[in-house]
């Protein structure tokens, strides 16, 4: 946590020698506290003071990077227990388990499938983030890691308690920056050695929460800089308690020993139960959640939950402005206009879809605000709607020239007709009225 000016002042020499360029040590301390000056301007600061100040500037939960390139996953650096206090910063990674004893072709097929397990949420692509390759004793872990790394650019987690297997696999794919899982009390020194040799992030696992801080501290002392914690909870309840304890200790108690992101293996008797517990792990602080299924019917809800929980409460999700078809829209289908606030769009889309009347929705860029807010802020006006209709070439998609606008902004009709040259129909005030409105809509003339 950041130190106050007075706390910093106490660490300075307090001689007011002015060499830092400030009249007094206190003036310098005030600048430091506001991060407007850098400590190296004072030539007399002690090593202890330096360490204390640098330590205080470090985030309470370390950042860990797994993988390389644009698929690299960054987790950690979280600052709050509750979304509304700020936001959750680095979306939790979703990993799918793959056993290493599949033949090469199956491994590659599976890896490719996971890379392609993606969903489009109105312009946002969400999917699985990591492949967790689990070493099955007797299989060639190195060959399996190589095969998976060739077939997919998703970051890897290498899972084995056997240091020999881990060393072989890690050296084969070290340039992909996998997460090594895991150092335990039983294999600690050897696992640390492998992680250090390749400069890779390392997970440490304790059975239960009691020893996790000690184990993590030992890894830090041994020189591992990027650490992920696993407390191996046996039940959902233990998972919730462990996750809460670690996040609270790191943020509220400033316990640096546990200031690392966590990894959770979803527990549960059935895939559906595991998926539910995985959603709780997403909401309650996990850095990585590992699941052992890749059924899209179960993965889609999870990636959606992750997207929702990690939405910045200050910046609501926006829909990419443009024109969207709902159902098999044709050149005779109605055209509705709305804003790009995700909730507004999804509500309108849901109601249009419920009407079973294929339609077009023109989404105007209103900086993520709802209809009435956007209208009040002059983001949803005759001008912005006309611009959207022209920019997205709505005229090229339909033969008629009729726009349906939300009832709440009926006042825009006249000006919009003049500016756009389209006829304007005023739709219902509430989105729920859309199905009835569309059903009673006469055929639109070309």
């Amino acid at each position, binding site marked *: 946590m950041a130190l106050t000016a007075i706390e910093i002042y106490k660490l300075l020499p307090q001689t007011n020698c002015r060499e830092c360029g400030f009249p007094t040590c206190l003036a310098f301390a005030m600048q430091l506290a506001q991060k407007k000056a850098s400590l190296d301007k004072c030539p007399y600061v002690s090593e202890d003071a330096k360490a204390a100040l640098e330590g205080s500037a470090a985030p309470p939960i370390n950042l860990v990077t797994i993988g390389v390139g644009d698929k690299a996953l960054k987790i950690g650096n979280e600052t709050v227990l*509750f*979304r*509304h206090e700020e936001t959750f910063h680095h979306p939790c990674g979703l990993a799918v388990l793959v056993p290493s004893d599949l033949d090469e072709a199956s491994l590659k097929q599976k890896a490719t499938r996971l890379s392609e397990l993606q*969903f489009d*949420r109105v312009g946002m692509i969400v999917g699985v983030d990591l492949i967790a390759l689990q070493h099955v004793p007797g299989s060639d872990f190195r060959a399996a890691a190589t095969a998976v790394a060739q077939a997919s650019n998703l970051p890897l987690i290498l899972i084995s308690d056997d240091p020999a297997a881990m060393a072989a696999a890690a050296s084969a794919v070290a340039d992909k920056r996998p997460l090594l899982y895991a150092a335990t009390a039983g294999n600690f020194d050897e696992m640390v050695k492998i992680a250090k040799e390749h400069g890779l992030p390392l997970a440490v696992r304790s059975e*239960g*929460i*009691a*020893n*996790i*801080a*000690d184990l993590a501290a030992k890894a830090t002392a041994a020189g591992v800089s990027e650490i992920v914690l696993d407390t191996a909870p*046996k*039940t*959902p*309840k*233990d998972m*919730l*308690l462990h996750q*809460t*304890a670690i996040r*609270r*200790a790191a943020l*509220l*108690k400033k316990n640096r020993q*546990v200031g690392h992101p966590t990894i959770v293996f979803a527990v549960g008797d059935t895939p*559906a*139960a595991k*998926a*539910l*517990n995985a*959603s*709780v792990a997403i*909401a*309650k602080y996990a850095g990585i959640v590992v699941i052992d299924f890749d*059924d*899209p*019917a*179960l*993965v*889609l*809800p*999870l990636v*959606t*939950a992750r*997207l*929702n*929980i990690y*939405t910045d*409460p200050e910046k609501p999700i926006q829909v990419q402005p443009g024109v969207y078809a709902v159902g098999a829209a044709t050149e005779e289908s109605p055209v509705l206009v709305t804003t790009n606030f*995700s*909730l507004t769009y*999804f*509500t309108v*889309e*849901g109601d249009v*879809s*419920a009407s079973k009347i294929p339609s077009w929705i023109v989404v105007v860029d209103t900086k993520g605000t709802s209809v009435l807010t956007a209208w009040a802020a002059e983001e949803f006006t005759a001008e912005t709607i006309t611009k959207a209709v022209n920019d997205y070439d709505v005229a090229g998609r339909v033969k008629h020239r009729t726009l349906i606008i939300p009832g709440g902004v009926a006042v825009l009709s006249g000006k919009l007709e003049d500016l756009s040259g389209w006829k304007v129909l005023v739709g219902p005030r509430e989105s729920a009225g859309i199905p009835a409105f569309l059903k009673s809509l006469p055929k639109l003339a070309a």
Partner: protein
Amino acid sequence: MSFEMPKEKWRGAVNQVKIGATAAEGGTRSSTVTVGGEATLPFLDFEGDTPNRPVIAFEVLDLAPTDWPEPLVEAYGDVFGDPAAWAQKCVEQYEADLICLRLQSAHPDRGDSSPAQCAETVKKVLQAVGVPLIIWGCGDNEKDNNLWPEVSQAAARERCCLGSAVQDNYKTISACAMADGHVVITEAPLDINIQKQVNILVTEMGVKPEDIIMYQVTGALGYGVEYAYTIMERTRLAALGGDKMLSMPMLAIVGSEAWRAKEARLPEEESPQWGRRYDRAILWEAMTAELFLHAGTDILVMWHPEAARLVKESVLSYSAASTESE
């Protein structure tokens, strides 16, 4: 050195509210449900009491749904149009803790059934099941105000939850609830200040805080779940911080919201990339509910029995003791 569980010291707690009344209490319910009372965040029983588990209310409509997707028709199709049989099926087959009866047919656009007809439906459902009832109006303010005197009277002394009182329409429902011994559900549009305001208005009319349940208009997974999640979390934190006007237990409407999502609605033929529709639809509803559980909801109003079963199991697993002694 063993790692210590960091504990918070909370000043307040959620109110405890009892729903339903047995014969000894002047009603006819064979069982009652008590919710609330938590003196900590959801399931964190190591630092505060969690005397009552969250419960699931099954929603029953007094009109046969015309647009429900197949998995729901499979579960309830045989009792559509017969709310008493529907409620009975929920209790006997699906082990509902409560029934949430929605008097849709009263809406001027949906049949405009009379207060007497609605009262009759309520009586039939009360006779058909022994669990407590949540009774929801049709959503049209004027009509609901006509409805409540007769409907509330038909269930007098049964200690039902009546929903809902909103900022600009709370008087009739509150007066009826007080006269007939019911609990009032106060509603707000995802706004913690409005929620508090409605609670103040309703209590100023004389409704006791222990006779109030709060409801924020809910959003489903993928469709605003994060707003509701955070509003509920903030509300629970306010209660734990000692804000008496935000200390009522919370209710979430999950079923109707989750099944609006196209991920739950679209059949496989139209969305093959999303996997089996049954599985994803069930999980869509269950996961929406699961997130609300962990934000602090006490009553989940749900639709599909399998989603409800999954969530009930989850409630049990998070309410169980930790396997590690501290």
